[in-house]
């Protein structure tokens, strides 16, 4: 009966409607309860900002492509080295750190739940192994379906049930959490040396369009009642003028779910470019934000770019090849059999580059122009836009116009002509930041039901206490303190235990992996479908019986079961 009492906490808990009250939080056996006994251990928060544990709804921290980023960048491992200390393992790396490095740094920033943005189903075992080595965060894995041959055949045949069956079987087999579409159709086309340039282009050899894939997957997702919506990385990432593709995609989203969004668009900053070449690239964040504001069925995350060195990694192979043609640095492209592909390239975002300055501004504009913070989440698409350790700086930029103005003086002087950022006066408040970094994520991922993202009795006791006193601190003026405060919690509590204190990790940690299983009727179970089995054995390099991830890879798996509505 481990009991803990957090006293005098300045709590903001958007999901429970608490907008900043001094209160006590009682914890028993990893859950939040009404009140604690007399023997409970007491933590005095001294009026500091106390939020539910942070949730990152799109990050790349585990899996084969992250690991490939690690071993193609030995120079990255020179940065961020820390020695073994107490329970902490040795860590190294800046943009692609070791798994423990990721885990400790997220933990000291108060993050307790992470969603790995893209897991290739065939390579799920490795991802799950790295999940267990990320001990301070509960992990979820978005599973890639963008170039899945069975899905595209189902789309071509307009067989929605079949698409749902493929998703259900694959998610259960690889212990994935939700559907991720990365440049739908484009990555598969890249396997044949081609790409798609709009959502109406035909994917070669399959005769389907990205628009059809997206629509079918959205509907299949709702048939299966999965907790999260379809998680989409739109087509044409990073192409000047791509905002039209993004707007067209947003326009086609039906409103099918009252509890959460129907489509989650990730790293929208990379999809909000106007102009026609790199020379006249401009910000179209206003158009995108207007579209998002008028459609509650859509949620986005920023994909903010911050200046400095990082590594880009995505399942979008053709885009990474285009990046290589710009940088002529080392690069990697990878094809995952019948499923997807990937690419990795180290990059440097420079204040001297007008394009990079415009990218930097667009991310912030999206967050500031989206009226409802529940619809726009904070992310850098770690590590594509910047490593996640830059989150505190982004929070400070969003909260302080003065900081943005000061930053603008360092940028390429032409930036102001191409972006509306410096005319925006909005400064986000503590509540909105709390929404954008945990509550909106919990709602969008549909994990409030298992006690994530809020502090009501019954919720999981994941709590972050930051050394910030909202009453005494003016974030618009003292942005440096805000940055420092969000960078290092006083206490990070995970499942009722203090895991990090003042930037020091104090326990070994043991996380759980959350996955979904749709309880499909037997006629839709593909493991008994003769045609599916035959194709699987014919085209994959692995046998179907070897494909599913065994339970041993998830020492503490948490399964969310869903009932199918047909």
């Amino acid at each position: 009966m481990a009991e803990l009492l957090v006293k005098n906490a300045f709590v903001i808990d958007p999901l429970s409607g608490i907008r900043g009250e001094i209160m006590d939080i009682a914890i028993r056996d990893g859950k939040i309860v009404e009140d604690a006994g007399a023997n409970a251990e007491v933590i005095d928060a001294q009026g500091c900002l106390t939020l539910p544990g942070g949730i990152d709804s799109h990050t790349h921290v585990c899996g084969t492509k992250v690991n490939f980023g690690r071993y193609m960048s030995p120079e990255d491992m020179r940065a961020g080295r820390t020695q073994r200390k107490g329970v902490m393992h040795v860590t190294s790396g800046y943009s692609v750190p070791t798994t423990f490095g990721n885990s400790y740094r997220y933990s000291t920033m108060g993050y307790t739940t992470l969603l790995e943005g893209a897991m290739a189903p065939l390579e799920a075992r490795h991802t799950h192994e790295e999940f267990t080595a990320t001990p301070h965060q509960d992990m979820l894995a978005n599973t890639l379906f963008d170039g899945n041959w069975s899905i595209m055949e189902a789309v071509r045949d307009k067989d929605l049930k079949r698409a749902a069956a493929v998703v259900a079987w694959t998610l259960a087999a690889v212990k994935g959490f939700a559907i991720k579409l990365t440049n739908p159709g484009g990555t598969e086309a890249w396997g044949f040396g081609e790409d798609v340039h709009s959502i109406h282009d035909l994917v070669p050899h399959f005769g389907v369009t990205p628009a059809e894939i997206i629509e079918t997957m959205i509907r299949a997702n709702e048939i299966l009642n999965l907790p999260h919506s379809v998680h989409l990385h739109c087509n044409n990432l990073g192409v000047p003028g791509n905002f039209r593709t993004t707007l067209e995609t947003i326009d086609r989203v039906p409103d099918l779910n009252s509890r959460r969004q129907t489509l989650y668009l990730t790293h929208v900053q990379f999809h909000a470019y106007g102009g026609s070449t790199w020379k006249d690239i401009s910000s179209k964040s206003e158009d995108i934000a207007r579209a998002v504001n008028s459609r509650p069925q859509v949620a986005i995350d920023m994909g903010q770019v911050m200046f400095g060195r990082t590594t880009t990694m995505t399942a979008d192979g053709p885009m990474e090849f285009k990046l290589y043609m710009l940088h002529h640095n080392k690069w990697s492209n990878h094809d995952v059999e019948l499923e997807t592909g990937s690419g990795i390239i180290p990059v440097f975002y420079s204040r001297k580059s007008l394009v990079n300055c415009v990218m930097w501004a667009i991310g912030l504009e999206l967050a500031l122009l989206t009226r409802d913070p529940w619809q726009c989440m904070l992310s850098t698409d770690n590590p594509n836009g910047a490593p996640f350790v830059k989150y505190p700086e982004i929070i400070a930029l969003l909260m302080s116009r003065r900081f943005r103005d000061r930053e603008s003086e360092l940028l390429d002087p032409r930036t102001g002509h191409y972006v509306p950022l410096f005319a925006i006066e909005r400064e986000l408040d503590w509540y909105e930041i709390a929404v954008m970094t945990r509550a909106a994520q919990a709602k969008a991922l549909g994990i409030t039901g298992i006690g994530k993202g809020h502090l009501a009795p019954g919720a999981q006791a994941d709590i972050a206490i930051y050394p910030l006193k909202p009453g005494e601190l003016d974030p618009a003026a003292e942005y440096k303190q805000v940055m420092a405060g969000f960078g290092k919690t006083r206490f990070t509590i995970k499942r009722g235990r203090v895991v990090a204190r003042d930037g020091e990790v104090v326990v070994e940690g043991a996380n759980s992996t959350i996955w979904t299983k749709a309880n499909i009727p037997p006629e839709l179970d593909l493991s008994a479908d003769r045609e599916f089995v035959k194709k699987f054995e014919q085209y994959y390099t692995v046998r179907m019986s070897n494909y599913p991830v065994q339970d041993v890879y998830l020492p503490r798996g948490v399964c969310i079961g869903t009932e199918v509505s047909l």
Partner: protein
Amino acid sequence: MRVILETKPRRKPKIPIEAEAITPQNFLIKNDIRVYEGNKERKLDEIFYVTTEGPAVSADQVEIVLSGETGVIKRVGEYMNAGRIVIEGDIGMHCGNFMSAGEIIIRGNADAWLGREMRGGVIRCEGNADHYCGAGYRGEKRGMRGGTIEVMGNAGDYTAEYLSGGEVRIMGDCGDLPGVEMRAGTLIIGGDCYRPCGNMTGGTCMVFGTAGAMLPTFISTGAEVREFCSKRMEMNVFRGDVANRGKGTLLVRKQ
């Protein structure tokens, strides 16, 4: 100020010493300089007989002299920004990493990674240098960016890999792949080498000996006369590496 460091006899003389703290600027400001012997931290006077002569008001006036069994001492002069280091014998790996100014003189041979990612200053090695002399760290896009490395003897493989500024001058032979991935700067090889300048995108490399196994991705663009050690030599000029934009220049002595 002149600091003389002479190695003390050690029970296990082969255990390497990590001595990134031995730089002129450190001797100017710090009294307590530590080095590592294997995984053990040691005070400087546990490893060396330390003699200090004279005063100094800036790091430029500091001269460090290393003598004795210096071949196992690594990372001497890392991030050095002024002054002078003289090594009376051989020196271990990573001597002069990232140095930005000052001078290092090595009377014996240098181990691998001499002057890795150097930014400026001068390194003069009177013996041979091992592999990766003047190279970049593995995976780094740019290697040495400025300054001069002069090796009077031979150098090993991958000399001046990723060179992007400054000058590397090897009076003797080089091993395999000198100047590979070179981007800018000058590489001069007095003797022979194999497969020079693979994938170079800029800069100039001159080979005054024989270049073995020349890569086929270099286009001959004529001949020139160059002077080396006050001898005039007829050189073939090549442009390359055409597999990667081909903006570099490679000159090889006519046989």
